[in-house]
């Protein structure tokens, strides 16, 4: 079993969704039930393989890549098919494996116009391959390919199944990300050519191997490294999204179908932060140190700016989208400190944000289904008309504002705390100022989230929705899709060590690389 997982486990997990998509491709789209079942089955089997991998994962050695496969792919540029899992990627993979089946379950009865479950579910499966591939890839080109593959399904999902301004939103989403990734690939290639060569089959060649690049890249001059980091910063920073590159996000979220929003918030944004932790910082620690104050500054601006924007929103989904900008700011602040603590907080924050904001988008989607509007001023009295839904919204709001005991707390609080003592030669005073401002951000977060809840949950239903028959409480498929997320939010809130333990070794390893070679 272990042997099989070692050589095939990851590849199987990554490409099985595509097999499911192919099986759906050949069946006519009228057989909707077949498509739903196949898609769900595929995502569950993928999840099962993921569980096998996780149970066979050696948690004591989480700093080392496990289940590594290293095969030739494009020999001429020495780009290889290298995949592996360590403590940093494991939580991200687990999150992806969880979210995708839940999204398929949720969409069982919620297919947005123009329906067509076949195409919709095929796109979700392709998306799953792209996301999982990005998290396991250990070769820059391979990572880039998966990173881009993620774009396509999301573009169609927003563009075809989205809201009224879907065409604008989908194109904006695509162009922003494409711009970032174009600069990112130039950065990857200059990194490739400027780093040292290694012997490959008796020939000296450059390498895209992320595992050894930190070592190979030590010879790069500071000036070049700053530019290369800049290119990666654009690629990952737009994806996060960091202020001031965030403007695609509210549009994309508002227009995307519910499931699209959930996947976008839960997993896609994490590709950016994951890229910083996995690629940009360990490979170019010297440049990271120079960039860190700037990143920290933008992160804090993002926290405050996102929060202020939230206060001004009249649309529930748009508000949640801006809260994403704010929350991802905490994650980026943790990363910018370049400390073990900060990275740990960032990874926890990524998972927590994925679960909580994913949950909020689910609720927003279901609200829209029932009220046919997300205009906050027209909603109200949800606790009266749909008590369960109201409570779930309240729970998610509390989690999102960082209530201790729920998952959100462990992402936000340590991130702020980590800025008290930044790593390497970072300016302590500057980061402490950032810390204080970020702390103000949590107050603002409480303000806009509670205010949202007051306006939507409390009070009495407005005249137009008083006796609306569409306002039925949480349905069976919704319970099915939401329960695991709600449970996890509580469990992670009480036992944050579940994640901290997994990431600890891997993060220490990364920070050791940063400290050993940078500064």
């Amino acid at each position, binding site marked *: 079993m272990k042997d099989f997982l070692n050589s095939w486990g990851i590849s199987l997990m990554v490409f099985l969704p595509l097999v499911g998509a192919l099986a759906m491709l050949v069946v006519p789209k009228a057989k909707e039930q077949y498509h739903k079942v196949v898609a769900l089955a595929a995502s569950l089997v993928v999840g099962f393989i993921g569980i096998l991998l996780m149970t066979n994962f050696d948690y004591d050695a989480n700093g080392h890549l496990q289940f590594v496969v290293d095969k030739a792919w494009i020999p001429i*540029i020495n780009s290889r098919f290298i995949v592996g899992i360590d403590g940093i990627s494991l939580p991200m993979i687990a999150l992806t494996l969880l979210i995708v089946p839940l999204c398929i379950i949720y969409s069982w009865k919620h297919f947005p116009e123009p329906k067509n479950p076949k195409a919709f579910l095929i796109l979700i499966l392709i998306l799953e391959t792209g996301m999982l591939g990005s998290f396991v890839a250990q070769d820059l080109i391979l990572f*880039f*390919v998966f990173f881009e*593959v993620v774009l396509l399904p999301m573009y169609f999902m927003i563009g075809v199944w989205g809201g009224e301004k879907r065409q604008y939103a989908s194109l904006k989403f695509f162009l922003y990300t494409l711009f970032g990734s174009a*600069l990112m690939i130039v950065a990857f290639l200059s990194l490739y050519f400027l780093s040292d060569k290694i012997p490959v089959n008796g020939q000296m060649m450059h390498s895209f191997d992320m595992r050894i690049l930190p070592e190979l890249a030590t010879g790069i001059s500071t000036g070049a490294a700053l530019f290369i980091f800049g290119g990666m910063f654009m690629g990952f920073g737009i994806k996060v999204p960091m202020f001031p590159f965030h403007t695609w996000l509210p549009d994309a979220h508002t227009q995307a179908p519910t499931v699209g929003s959930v996947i976008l918030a839960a997993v896609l944004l994490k590709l950016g932060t994951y890229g910083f932790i996995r690629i940009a910082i360990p490979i170019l620690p010297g440049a990271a140190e120079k960039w860190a104050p700037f990143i920290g500054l933008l992160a804090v601006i993002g926290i405050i700016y996102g929060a202020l924007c939230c206060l001004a929103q009249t649309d529930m989904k748009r508000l949640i989208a801006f809260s994403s900008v704010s929350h991802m700011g905490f994650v980026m602040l943790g990363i910018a400190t370049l400390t073990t603590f900060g990275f740990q907080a960032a990874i926890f924050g990524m998972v927590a944000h994925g679960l909580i904001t994913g949950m909020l988008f689910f609720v927003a989607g279901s609200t829209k289904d029932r009220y046919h509007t997300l205009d906050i001023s027209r909603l109200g009295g949800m606790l009266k008309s749909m008590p369960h839904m109201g409570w779930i919204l309240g729970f998610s709001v509390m989690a999102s504002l960082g209530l201790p005991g729920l998952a959100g707390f462990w992402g936000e609080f340590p991130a702020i705390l980590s800025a008290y003592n930044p790593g390497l030669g970072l300016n302590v005073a500057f980061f402490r100022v950032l810390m204080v401002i970020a702390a103000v951000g949590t107050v603002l977060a409480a303000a806009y989230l509670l205010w949202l809840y007051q306006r939507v949950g409390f009070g009495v239903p407005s005249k137009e929705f008083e006796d609306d028959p569409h306002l039925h409480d949480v349905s069976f498929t919704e319970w099915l899709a939401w329960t695991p997320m709600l449970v996890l939010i509580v469990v992670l809130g009480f036992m944050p060590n579940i994640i901290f333990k997994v990431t600890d070794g891997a993060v220490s390893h990364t920070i050791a690389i940063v400290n050993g070679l940078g500064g």
Partner: protein
Amino acid sequence: MLAQLLTFAWSAPSVDYHALAPEIIVAATIVVLIALDAFTGERSRWASSSIAGIGLLLALIPIATLAYDGVDRIMFGGGFVVDNYALILQALFVVAGYIVILLSTNYIAEGDYYEGEYYTLLLSSVLGMMVMASARDLISIFIALELVSIPAYMLAAWRKRDQKSNEAGLKYYLMGVFASAILLYGMSLIFGITGSTLLVNIGADLGSYISSQPIITLGIVFVLIGFAFKVSAVPFHQWAPDTYEGAPTPVTSFLAVASKAAGFVAILNVLFIGFYGRHDVWEPLMWALAALSMTVGNLIALRQTNVVRMLAYSGIAQAGYILAPLAVAGATLGTGGEALRSIVVYLLIYAGMNLGAFAVVLAVARKTRSAEIKSFGGLFSYAPVLTVCMTIFLFSLAGIPPAAGWFAKLSIFSSLASAGTASGYVLAVIVGLNSVIAFGYYGRLIRVMWMDEAPDGDRTPIKVPASLSFALIITVAVTLVWGVFPGALTHFTDQVTLFSLLR
């Protein structure tokens, strides 16, 4: 003395028939087509497309055996070389020609055009391209170029009752002749300086004539500008959109892919063998041509409402990407080799994805009788397979994985970065920015196909004829396989070099 000279002059050159077999087969097919057309009348005209197709496929056999053999064959005093580079490009031209025949079959037969003549001319043009791949002499390059172009002028005007088609042919002809004249003038200057038409000799001598710098510069620039017309690089591109729009669509695909590739092959031949030592002259020129072509091409493409015109401008932009590595190719032999290989890779992938895009345009036009972008509205609702195919091609053109175009772009980026110079990096960033602009119009077409309604509400499915389907299968397969396993492509291209001839 005189007798000796005479006997030398008249001794027949040794001919390696194996090396010439691909060209001979295509030439023989042309003869068969003419004979068929002349002696059998209307009855068997339908066979001409099959014969032309079979002839091209047969030509692949000696190409394969020659490649398997692996020996560089040099003939006619070095003016004609069959090596890996020549073979891989000949294979490209033959297969591209075959796909164009597949695209043409129904169009030409149903349009009641002259079938025999059409395929004869098409094959003549392909023959010219094959010669171009092997030509290493100014004269043979020129002859190959004319053999490519003259049939193409006529093909562009094939719909002779259509004013636009006439305009297309005439414009293409006048511009082409003008370019040829400039090219010849440049060649004569180079010949005047070096006293040789053989590229190897030119390459050996050109570096040593410091005093004649102005004339050498003029010669190199004129030759390159002549070819720049052929590949429709900005600012020598004005003919392309009108010609592409007016010409019959299969011919357009032929001009946009095969004919353009032939122009690039000519540029590669003269630059890497003849002018390589003078990179101080041509590198800045190529930088400017590349940056201008991609930027102008992409910006104008944004405003197009006709798919064929859009593809024409996208082709101009793509020409810019292909020229980009040449802007840094002179730094070292290593960079030069990198640039050469990346261009060959790009040409191969470009042929696959662009021919595929034209195949879809042809298939859709069978129903809508139009190539307006609007007429693609709602395609997903009644022709999902065609839509998916077109989406793959457009993503490939935009350079997004897993469609093959990403690897082509990566090769370009990689060769620009390998130079390690500021100009290389700046150009790489310009390519990157242009990729974003380009998605503006590729994405719009995708959007129209997937997200808009059918303009007249007509949702009857499209009947795609067998030959078109076959062309689509080939191009989609190539685009996806090369995208997922670029190794399958680089396996053939990583041995490509033009420097073996340099002394």
